[in-house]
């Protein structure tokens, strides 16, 4: 069973990594083996010990059989982006990826592996320690049901990690109790499996290791949740009642969560009937068509999709823009078309969404950085869409949508009232003299709309695309078309005052460097700031939260000699958008572009900044 080991952890390396509450654990599993929930339990246990933690799934576009990884970063400093680089401890459960996983252990780190199968000579590195546990053999002996033999392997290694990393066993027990509430029969066998691992580790290794966790009180009231759950819940709070959708990774769970919260929270108490309607449509064209029809008819409505779905929705986005129909679209961005990289993250739909569709169109975009903002923006987007009578696109991404993130708890202000925008009631229609659907009475580019069925004689109009006059009548007169297009532009300027303002952090003295970033790149910024400071460089930062751009963005760019626009796509799409929309000197905008499908790291950012500065210096010297 267990082979003689060349290097055991107990040999106590002098070179062993030393770390308390600051290291990375990488789990290597096979897709479809049930590892997700135990890996998640591991991350949550750290959280419940009061230590900040982040977790990333790296998974293939496949249901069963391919390698998946789960990377947990434990960071007392609250550095919660993907750290990148090798991990202090790798739990290697997938023979397929074993060589790669061994290579991924940091020098001085640890490899926990299933020693039921012997390693080959070439799989031994002499700079790391091997924690060999015959996990399969243990499960083979303990369980009869083949499914249990597979599933409990995952629980056994979590139990072992508890001993090795100093995780409080009671915390794990309470997590199991929470996870299986209502399925109480499962609690005891799960705790038993945890104990099997825990005891094995205690008996065979010196526990804890030189890397370990210690209880802290650093989490406060933060929560750990994924962005899609937050978006789905935000839509419930924002009052969405009609949803059309078509499944696509990584957006599917937005709708699944919306549906499950609705099933709990949106049932009419008196009749038991549903206060919502959810249609799995035939495709994304229909999904957005449903949302548009419902919004036109005065219900709050949304759809969620990812890149390929955005492509299919573009004709309708143009219609909604021109016909001025409120619409909420949640775009969980991924890498490109077809399969393969689509289960990886990117921010590569920025330009597509900003200008989606034919004719002169532009759309309101919101860029949440974490699940708390996903919740906030998702609820807010319904107000914005109603106020502006136009599509509002929430630009999430796979990292944000599908990974758990530690963030502020969700909040809802009871005083906050839905902003339904300029919608005329029957009474108002009776009072208004010369109603025109597209008349800019208030001078902000936003006109008054009416909902079908409101008034027996007044306010009805025929909704169509581009060609209409102020009274919604058909027109092909150039002057009327131009007037309408200019008003739409005015409305877009109004939008820039209503959308969330950028978050600007500037030191007392002006830093020469300004970083501009948005969305999930935010997670790497604090750490980058720290690392650049270690290099003697002070930076100011601006986080873009929305498009159209707020008027604080140009001055920020003007104030700094060197601007870095950080984004997760190849073509510098946000940089292009800034250049296109603002009157600024494009030469000032350096691009930092991460597009390998993995969440951006501070190491990457810092390296790019330093390289660019070095190059600039060189060219000044020569």
């Amino acid at each position: 069973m267990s082979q003689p080991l060349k290097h055991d952890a107990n040999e106590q390396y002098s070179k062993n990594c030393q770390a308390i509450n600051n290291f990375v654990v990488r789990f290597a599993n096979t897709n479809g083996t049930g590892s997700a929930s135990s890996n998640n339990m591991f991350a949550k246990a750290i959280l419940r010990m009061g230590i900040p933690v982040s977790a990333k799934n790296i998974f293939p576009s496949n249901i069963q059989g391919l390698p998946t990884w789960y990377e947990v970063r434990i960071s007392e400093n609250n550095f919660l982006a993907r750290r990148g680089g090798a991990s202090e401890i790798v739990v290697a459960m997938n023979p397929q990826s074993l060589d790669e996983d061994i290579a991924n252990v940091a020098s001085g780190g640890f490899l926990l592996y299933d020693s039921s199968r012997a390693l080959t000579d070439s799989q031994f590195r002499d700079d790391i320690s091997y924690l060999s546990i015959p996990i399969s053999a243990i499960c083979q002996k303990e369980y009869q049901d083949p499914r249990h033999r597979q599933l409990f392997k995952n629980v056994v290694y979590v139990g072992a990690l508890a001993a090795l990393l100093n995780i409080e066993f009671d915390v794990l027990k309470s997590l199991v109790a929470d996870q299986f509430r209502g399925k109480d029969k499962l609690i005891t066998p799960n705790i038993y499996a945890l104990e099997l691992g825990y005891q094995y580790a205690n008996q065979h290794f010196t526990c804890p290791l030189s890397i370990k966790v210690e209880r802290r009180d650093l989490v406060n009231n933060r929560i750990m949740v994924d962005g899609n759950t937050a978006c789905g819940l935000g839509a419930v709070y924002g009052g969405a009642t009609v949803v059309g959708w078509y499944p696509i990774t990584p957006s599917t769970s937005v709708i699944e969560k919306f549906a499950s919260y609705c099933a709990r929270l949106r049932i009419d108490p008196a009749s038991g009937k549903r206060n919502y309607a959810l249609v799995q449509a035939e495709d994304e064209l229909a999904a957005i068509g449903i949302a548009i029809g419902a919004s036109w008819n005065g219900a709050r409505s949304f759809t969620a999709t990812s890149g390929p779905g955005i492509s299919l929705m573009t004709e309708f986005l143009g219609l909604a823009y021109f016909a001025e129909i409120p619409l909420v679209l949640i775009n969980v961005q991924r890498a490109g078309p077809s399969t393969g990289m689509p289960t990886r993250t990117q921010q590569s739909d920025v330009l597509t969404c900003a200008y989606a569709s034919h004719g002169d169109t532009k759309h309101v975009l919101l860029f949440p950085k974490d699940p708390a903002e996903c919740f906030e923006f998702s609820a807010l987007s319904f107000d914005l869409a109603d106020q502006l009578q136009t599509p509002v696109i929430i630009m999430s991404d796979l990292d944000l949508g599908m990974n758990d993130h530690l963030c502020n708890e969700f909040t809802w202000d009871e005083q906050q009232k839905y902003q339904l925008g300029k919608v005329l009631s029957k009474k108002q229609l009776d009072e208004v003299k010369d109603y025109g659907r597209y008349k800019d009475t208030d001078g902000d580019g936003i006109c008054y709309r009416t909902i079908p069925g409101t008034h027996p004689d007044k306010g009805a109009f025929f909704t169509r695309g581009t060609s209409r006059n102020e009274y919604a009548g058909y027109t092909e007169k150039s002057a009327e078309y131009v007037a309408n297009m200019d008003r739409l532009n005015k409305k877009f300027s109004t939008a820039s005052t209503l959308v969330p303002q950028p978050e600007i952090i500037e030191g007392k003295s002006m830093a020469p460097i300004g970083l501009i970033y948005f969305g999930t790149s935010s997670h790497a910024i604090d750490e980058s700031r720290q690392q650049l400071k270690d290099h003697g460089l002070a930076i100011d930062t601006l986080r873009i939260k929305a498009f159209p751009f707020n008027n604080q963005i140009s001055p920020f760019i003007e104030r700094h000699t060197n601007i870095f626009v950080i984004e997760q796509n190849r073509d510098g799409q946000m940089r292009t958008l800034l250049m296109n929309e603002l009157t600024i000197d494009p030469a000032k905008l350096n691009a930092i572009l991460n597009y390998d499908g993995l969440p951006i790291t501070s190491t990457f950012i810092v390296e790019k900044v330093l390289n660019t500065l070095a190059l600039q210096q060189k060219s000044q010297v020569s």
Partner: protein
Amino acid sequence: MSFQKSKFHHPRLPVNDLGLNYRDYEGALSTLCAGCGHDSITSAIVQACFELSLPPHQVAKMSGIGCSSKAPNYFLNKAHGFNTVHGRMPSVTTGANLANRELTYLAMSGDGDSASIGLGQFAHVVRRQLNMLYMVANNGVYGLTKGQLAATADRGMKNKVGEQSLFTDIDLCVMALQLGATFVARSFSGDKKQLVPLIKAAISHQGFAFIDIISPCVTFNNHPDSTRSYDYVHQHITTAAVTDFVPVKQEITSDCAAGICEDICLHDGSLMRIHKLQPDYETKNAMKAIVDIETHKKKGEILTGLFYLDANGEHYHEINNTTDTPLNKLTQDDLCPGSRVLSGINDSFR
């Protein structure tokens, strides 16, 4: 282009139960070609809505893109309308209907709009059993883009420039029957006597109602080689049954010999009286209706009339168990779970 009609009307025009006259149901002046079948459909819709005493503002007029899809502009001025995008009217109507189950949804589409670009949306809105009336003005061509063959064009038919339809035609009634529509009929824009009662019954029907209306395009498909010309249709039309629509509360006056007459009670209590011209004709067997349609087609005949009616089928909101209050009338109090619930949800993420 559209022109508004003069609001003046004769004070002695007959009025309906709502005190409205026929002209209250009209729309803008049509800009379609003189003689276009679509205009006859428009006037049949106006008459049907007037006779049914439908409050015009309780109707939503939905359409895609095409000459036929322009038609909603020419009826029911007091109703909101939505000229959506080509082939996508069914999804927009789905959303609208989900948002407010109380309005009457009158949808106009073309054969290009529904049988080609929008075939997928057509199929799925039938499956969904949306409570609406879906009308297709079937002229065998794309009128608005100047006469290309539509997928409903009979195989072998030639359009005006002599291009022949080489492939199997799509029969939208057959598709609707196969996909479970609860009201399926075919009619001819030139036969108001048949069309008006069908539209009235279809509006009263609670569920997905489909009427395919042969509607000749005088400009691009009215030549001798066409199977959608007025002459051809007049010569080849055959009617399975003549239908009367008897509104709720009204006495049945039309006499009808026993055995060849069938009364079907609609959901709202009104009656559909069917005078069978063909003795073995029945309206409760979708499979037989498909066979009938195809058999007549093989003989070169266009079968019209009510093909199928299931007055008790469930529609979308019944299937979904949607609350009775239209979703667009629910308020923040009904919809927002509030901060207390949220703090419980927060706890589930700790």
